């Protein structure tokens, strides 16, 4: 065991964990006042559901010895049994438990990414159930394809440093499939649905950026030069993407917006994720600029094509993920993560072809399975709250809470009889009533 590497991956696991609350705030600020708590909860519930499933069978399905054809791992490690404290992860110098904790955080944030697409209208129990089935049927197998030593995409030589295919394309295309099942928000394209709290969006984007260093740099499972390159490339591409997004906005809309800066940063983080171990710093700038500008353009597609992806999961994660996943095929220098070279570095079309196979496989599988799973849930227990409840606000209906109390006129908070008071008779009188003796 190498304590330096182990310490770094442990720290990285903690950083990646922080991304899920970060995402919750990023998304939470973008919805309307009446939906903020539901939006936060859709991310937070992933922390609970996926963690338990990961222990029960998720880690085993993803990283245990292949069960057949590089498609899914076996269940030998169910309950994470038989994993010794001192046992090292295959071919690396860190304990299996540390690796499992790090990878768990990826499994948590991936379904949370999808939630932004169906904001404002999804029944919470249906969502929680969807998360449980989706990680089981889609995420665990796809992560096995890409990252397990005997996964079929890994064996083909597809480069996915930290999850461009398994996390971002996977979540982005699932978001599109789910939106097609669930349908549009009431008033889509008619009512204003502007973000209720842009400072919250900025806090969320900042936390995502910070946590992403663990996401990308930690994925090398060591603290060395490749890790350093992955980390600095992450910073470079993110900065360039923010500029790319803002540049396009200034030309198209005339303003440099806060939401654009935050979205551009996230688009850059998404795009550099699969490529951060293969590119040069200059290549990262090029990738970031392109990803920022293209994603800024792509978020407008929903208005033209008519699907209601509430918070642009498709425009940012799917489009950014595809750009980033193809990047090693074009810009890999061949001297960092692996010796595979991209098209622009004299490597020909070989690596680009492999990357295309990876992208296509995840797109097809995730879309089809998510669409079927979403439809089954929609037809049985129902995916949406009623139209009245959606208009009134999903926070009140699903959680019996509201995010903000703006005015004292909003209603009495006197406890309901029998709750929070000593006797039923006492509850009938307002708390501040004085009784003369």
């Amino acid at each position, binding site marked *: 065991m190498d304590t330096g590497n182990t310490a770094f991956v442990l720290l990285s696991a903690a950083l990646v964990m922080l991304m899920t609350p970060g995402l919750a705030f990023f998304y939470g600020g973008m919805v309307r006042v009446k939906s903020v708590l539901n939006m936060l909860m859709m991310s937070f519930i992933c922390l609970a559901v996926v963690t338990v499933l990961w222990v029960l069978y998720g880690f085993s399905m993803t990283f245990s010895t292949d069960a057949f054809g590089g498609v899914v791992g076996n269940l030998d490690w169910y309950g994470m049994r038989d994993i010794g404290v001192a046992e090292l992860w295959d071919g690396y110098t860190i304990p299996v438990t540390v690796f499992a904790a790090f990878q768990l955080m990826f499994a948590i944030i991936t379904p949370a990414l999808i939630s932004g697409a169906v904001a404002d209208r999804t029944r919470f129990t249906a969502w929680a159930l969807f998360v449980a089935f989706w990680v089981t049927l889609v995420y665990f197998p796809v992560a096995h394809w890409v990252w397990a030593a005997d996964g079929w995409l890994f064996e083909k030589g597809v480069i996915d440093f930290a999850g461009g295919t398994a996390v971002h394309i996977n979540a982005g295309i699932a978001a599109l499939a789910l939106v097609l099942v669930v349908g549009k928000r009431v008033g889509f394209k008619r009512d204003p649905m*502007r*973000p209720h709290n842009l400072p919250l969006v900025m806090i969320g984007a900042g936390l995502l950026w910070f946590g992403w260093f663990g996401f990308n740099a930690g994925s090398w499972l060591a603290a060395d030069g490749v890790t350093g390159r992955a980390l600095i490339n992450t910073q470079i591409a993110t900065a360039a993407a923010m500029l790319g997004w803002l540049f396009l906005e200034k030309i198209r809309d005339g303003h440099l*917006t806060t*939401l654009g800066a935050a979205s551009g940063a996230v688009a850059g983080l998404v795009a550099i994720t699969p490529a951060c171990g293969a590119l040069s710093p200059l290549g990262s700038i090029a990738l970031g600029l392109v990803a920022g500008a293209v994603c800024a353009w792509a*978020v*407008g597609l929903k208005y033209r094509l008519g699907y209601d992806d509430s918070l642009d999961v498709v*425009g940012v994660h799917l489009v950014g993920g595809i750009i980033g996943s193809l990047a090693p095929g074009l810009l890999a220098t061949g001297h960092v993560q692996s010796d595979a070279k991209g098209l622009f570095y004299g490597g020909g079309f070989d690596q680009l072809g492999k990357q295309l196979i990876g992208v296509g496989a995840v797109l097809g599988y995730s879309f089809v399975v998510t669409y079927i799973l979403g439809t089954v849930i929609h037809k049985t227990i129902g995916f949406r709250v009623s139209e009245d409840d959606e208009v009134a606000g999903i926070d009140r209906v699903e959680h019996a809470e509201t995010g903000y109390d703006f005015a004292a006129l909003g209603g009495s908070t006197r406890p309901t009889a029998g709750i929070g008071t000593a006797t039923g008779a006492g509850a009938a009188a307002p708390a501040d009533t004085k009784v003369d003796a």
Partner: protein
Amino acid sequence: MKLITAVIKPHRLDDVKNALQAFGVHGLTVTEASGYGRQRGHTEVYRGAEYQVDLVPKVRIEVLADDEDAEELLEVLVKAARTGKIGDGKAWIVPVDSVVRVRTGERGPEAL
């Protein structure tokens, strides 16, 4: 008696308050309001999607005045609220039948 109501730009409130105080007004009511006039609202852009925001934040000021003071008070108020730019607002006077000071029950001019 008269009721003078003015809907003005929020940042003019302090000047209006000071001007009214200097004029000798003892009390007034201020409410946060929103609305639009001929110029309508403004446009905001979120990820390229434009939103027309019709209702612009305003404050509404209400002052009670004696019949003989009302016109002059209105002038003072309007002068203090004016910036000369679009969206300065409106002010108007309406007759009031009866005024009561809640604490004492006094009526009419005594209650002002």
